């Protein structure tokens, strides 16, 4: 109760520790009070190079490692230069390698792109654009013996549809060989074989053959619909970019 009174009693202004031990002598000016949060990025003192781009890049690098410092510096500027970046033959090579790897990894089948959202209107060019692997199958062949069986994706969609409609159209056995050789041309077929689960193979082997034939029959039909080979298709994005003076090519 004696201490109540807002610190006007005895002992006002006394600290629990010896100020000198901490290093603040009597009469020393204390640093000014902090009225606002410290700036996100301290101002740099070092003289800029003539090339202003360099500073910008340096700031970015400094900023990235400095912005996380919650310092008591207030507005105190940096006193030092950042460590020089690796340069020279080794540095350049590793840098180029890194960028190359980044690009390469995007092209590998391990890079899974999210499904392209359906656009509002079905467009003619959609038929020509190579969308991802069919039916969510994966593009590459892992060694399924090493993976849990549950990870195998079964391709069923197309097959189910075909069975009901096209069963009566079973072609005779003799032409199966011919069909099989045509099958090999289709990469789609290869994928279907691989992706289908092992369990089903024994039971549905015959069914599968039929389905694939129907499918591939369908593929041929599908192909005949289009008069133009896919790789020749130009969806007109470059239109206007080509030189107009060249009248040798007809413009479609």
């Amino acid at each position: 109760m004696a201490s109540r009174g807002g610190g006007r009693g005895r002992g006002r202004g006394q600290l629990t520790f010896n100020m000198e031990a901490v290093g603040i002598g009597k009469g020393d000016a204390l640093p000014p009070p902090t009225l606002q949060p410290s700036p996100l990025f301290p101002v740099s003192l070092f003289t800029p190079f003539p090339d202003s781009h360099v500073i910008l890049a340096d700031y970015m690098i400094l900023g990235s490692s400095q912005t996380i410092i919650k310092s008591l510096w207030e507005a105190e500027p940096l006193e030092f230069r950042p460590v020089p970046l690796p340069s020279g033959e080794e540095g350049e090579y590793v840098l180029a390698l890194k960028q190359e790897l980044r690009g390469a990894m995007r092209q590998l089948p391990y890079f899974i792109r999210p499904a392209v959202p359906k656009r509002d209107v079905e467009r003619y060019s959609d038929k020509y654009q190579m969308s991802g692997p069919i039916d969510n199958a994966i593009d590459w062949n892992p060694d399924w013996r090493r993976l849990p069986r549950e990870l195998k994706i079964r391709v069923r969609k197309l097959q189910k549809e075909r069975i009901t409609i096209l069963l009566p159209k079973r072609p005779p056995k003799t032409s199966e060989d011919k069909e099989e050789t045509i099958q090999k041309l289709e990469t789609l077929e290869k994928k279907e074989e691989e992706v289908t689960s092992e369990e089903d193979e024994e039971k549905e082997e015959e069914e599968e053959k039929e389905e694939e034939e129907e499918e591939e029959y369908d593929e041929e039909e599908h192909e005949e619909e289009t008069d133009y080979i896919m790789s020749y298709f130009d969806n007109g994005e470059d239109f206007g970019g080509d030189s107009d003076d060249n009248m040798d090519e007809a413009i479609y």
Partner: protein
Amino acid sequence: MCMDQTALRLPSTMTQAEIKLCSLLLQEHFGEIVEKIGVHLIRTGSQPLRVIAHDTGTSLDQVKKALCVLVQHNLVSYQVHKRGVVEYEAQCSRVLRMLRYPRYIYTTKTLYSDTGELIVEELLLNGKLTMSAVVKKVADRLTETMEDGKTMDYAEVSNTFVRLADTHFVQRCPSVPTTENSDPGPPPPAPTLVINEKDMYLVPKLSLIGKGKRRRSSDEDAAGEPKAKRPKHTTDNKEPIPDDGIYWQANLDRFHQHFRDQAIVSAVANRMDQTSSEIVRTMLRMSEITTSSSAPFTQPLSSNEIFRSLPVGYNIAKQVLDQYLTLLADDPLQFVGKSGDSGGGMYVISILTSDFLRVRQPVLFGSRCARIFRLVLQKKHLEQKQVEDFAMIPAKEAKDMLYKMLSENFISLQEIPKTPDHAPSRTFYLYTVNILSAARMLLHRCYKSIANLIERRQFETKENKRLLEKSQRVEAIIASMQATGAEEAQLQEIEEMITAPERQQLETLKRNVNKLDASEIQVDETIFLLESYIECTMKRL
């Protein structure tokens, strides 16, 4: 002696910064879907397939795809639990290694030239491969770069592969155990992969005969073959591969050991001279395979052995060698320690050296702070006044710096009470450095830095996406026009499609991206040093 692929069921102990970095890396290399699954597993620990799909709101198929990729790249492992449930667990630290891929590949290049470089690159890009697959891919790639008419022989690539295996830079993956056919019952939901330690570097006896193919020639083959030849083509695919089921991966630990050795040698070279560093390098090379990757000390080596193993060009007398060794052992940094006198003195290299930490101080606080830090580190405990005196820095500045470092937790205060009542006025306050915590803190900061660098780079690229696409299109047009023999004037016109300010912008972008990439590489070096240090120290405790 069997090392199972056991997954510890520990809750995730990764910091937010690490998780964020993992997320960025996964997204850059494998896309958003894999990133989502991967990060989820890192956060939550071990989970079965359906739970992952449910919790992340992704379709089952997508989850399966993502898991296939992650397992292939050794980033996720699985384990069969009772009732046949398979659980998947992510290896977060392995994800962070993706930052270091360029360094691994470059190191192999310096040791085993282009062939070795490509072997390791293929292994890293594909996660794991059979030896025959690697040899074929690398031979094809090398053939592409050779002059017309020349091809790369499989045998040469195989030789390099064997050398990599012998020096442990590549190792076998655990494989499916061969079970007898009489095993009744349904096959297990997932195989349990095992590997025998002595088989890890055993190269299968293959006689790979062949030469690399250029892409052009294989295209011609495909087009030119008439239908009758088709069945022959398919039988090629069905041919049994001699090393079927034996997969190889890059041995990252071995690379880390190499980096460590390099760092030690260069530190010695900086501190002393070339000859000492050569001696140290010899000692390290001798203990390359006998020392496990995280041991704090090498096996003791006698000076006689060292003398015998010095590289041929170095003719120094035995006494001179002994002198050098003594000098190294006496050095306060304790790179080399003497541990016994048999065989002319046994010497040991201490992998543990806090020199690494000191190097990083100037970057953050300035060289004066570094001086203070080093001082406190050396003397273990110092009072305020002593700091000022020893460092020869005016009191005010010294105070300032000490408090700065204190606020960042590089330095801590230790209280030593003079009296039992711990009265502040009668207590010693000493500054001390707790290296382990300082190292951890610095490491955490590094993770944040790299995450920031990557994000900034992605931002820069996105901002200029339109411009980048335009320039790529223009380049493609130019290339195709050149191929069809267009005139100079036409090419000129196309090039002018990109205006001068746009060109400037592209230049700036390229320069910035390069700087950011280079910084990432540099920070990763620091991360490596800090992680090694922490790992070694933890083993010692």
